């Protein structure tokens, strides 16, 4: 399969601490796209989570900063209390607009702005969670001809969020969490050769 993608966006809620500690450490150091993550969380409980992921991963894991240039081989985590948006010049912006699906950061906001920028070169992934945030975002990514993945609800700590994404009929692949990193790596290798 050939999918030339420039960015991966990930939405995750309840159960995300474990899920991200499984997913991100399995990505190779030179993963040739940025991975941009919204994990639902409160403002002000940030540091440990990001530091812990960074210490266990080969890719750099950091909090996304306002106006920061988005680079491959890096996983960015949305700061608590702010929506994370993608600008056309491939930088981040933040907003304190009203919460979406009770969430700020919201997965829908990230996915919809990412779809606008990356179009068919975007992969969107919904993982474990007890919310339906991300479902509209998955639809938008599909409308832009991006590729969409949901974690197999049976392997999710909380299955509501992947189930609700799948119910949109816009999900291309349903995969167990452990299979997602190699799936992504294979997509990339098809396009970029070995790295």
């Amino acid at each position, binding site marked *: 399969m050939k999918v030339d993608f420039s960015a991966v966006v990930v939405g995750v809620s309840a159960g995300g601490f474990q899920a991200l500690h499984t997913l991100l450490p399995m990505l190779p150091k030179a993963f040739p796209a940025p991975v941009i993550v919204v994990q639902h969380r409160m403002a002000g409980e940030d540091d440990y989570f990001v530091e812990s992921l960074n210490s266990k991963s080969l890719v750099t894991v950091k909090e996304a900063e306002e106006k920061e240039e988005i680079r491959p081989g890096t996983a960015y985590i949305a700061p608590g209390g702010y929506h994370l948006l993608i600008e056309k010049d491939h930088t981040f*912006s933040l907003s304190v607009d009203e919460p979406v699906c009770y969430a700020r950061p919201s997965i829908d906001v990230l996915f919809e702005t990412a779809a606008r*920028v990356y179009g068919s070169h975007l992969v969107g992934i919904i993982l474990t969670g007890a919310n339906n945030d991300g479902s509209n975002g998955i639809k938008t990514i599909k409308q832009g001809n991006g590729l969409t993945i949901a974690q197999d609800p049976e392997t999710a700590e909380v299955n509501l969020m992947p189930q609700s994404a799948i119910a949109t009929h816009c999900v291309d692949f349903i995969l167990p969490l452990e299979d997602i990193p190699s799936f992504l790596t294979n997509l990339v290798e098809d396009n970029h050769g070995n790295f």
Partner: protein
Amino acid sequence: MMNNEEIEIKVLLNAIQLKYGYDFTQYADASLTRRIHKSLSDSGYKRISEMIPPLLYDKDFFNSFLNNLTVNVTEMYRDPPFFRSIREKVVPYLKTFPFIKVWSVGIATGEEVYSLAIMLKEEGLYDKALIYATDFNDTVLEIAQKGIYPAQSIKTSTRNYQKSGGKHSFATYYHADYDSVIFDRALKKNIVFANHNLATDGVFGEMNLILCRNVLIYFNRALQDRVLKLFHDSLRTNGFLCLGSRESIDFSTVAPAFVPVKKRLRIFQKKKGQIKELSDES
């Protein structure tokens, strides 16, 4: 090449600027585009450009568009550790002055101004303070001036007030009336509510303290830099500048003129020479 949507947005923003003087052309795109789409779906029109005629000819349509476009989400004592730090690091310094001027910028519906007024009152500073509270949106300024908020917000406000180092019962500052709370009229005595647009208006003189939190994130770098210069020029030497917890001055041309008092909480002091006694870099 611009796509059609980008062209439509550009033309729409130009129309608003020509007709009403509001300049949104230096706002960060992603959020602005998202909010324009929200107005579009509320309006029932299919294309962004179809909103241009009603924006020009229907003042009510324009007003609701403007309210949709500008972000008016705020709460009392948002980020309580910030207010605690102001009490601990900034207030002792302000107490050394016979009279202080404070500028609260982009106040939206005003929750932060009342938070500030209550804090100054508890610290014995209110009676010698003048607080300028500005926003460029008259609709929200009116709400701020009334000081009436939905009762359901009071639980969060009270909790935040306590966490911020509040010294009394929060209930002494408002009167509850059915599903609203009305803040004590006396808190408004030294507050001047005024219209000010950061994209087009100028300096607001000789401030001891400027608060502008989570406003700059909506601007592009050029406008951010303009605004930071404006704040620099509006502050007295040793005056304090407070930004939102994810906002930065590092990129700006005025960055060398400020030292961090609490870097994490984005509290900066405009320096003169080598004044660094308040800096702790934490």
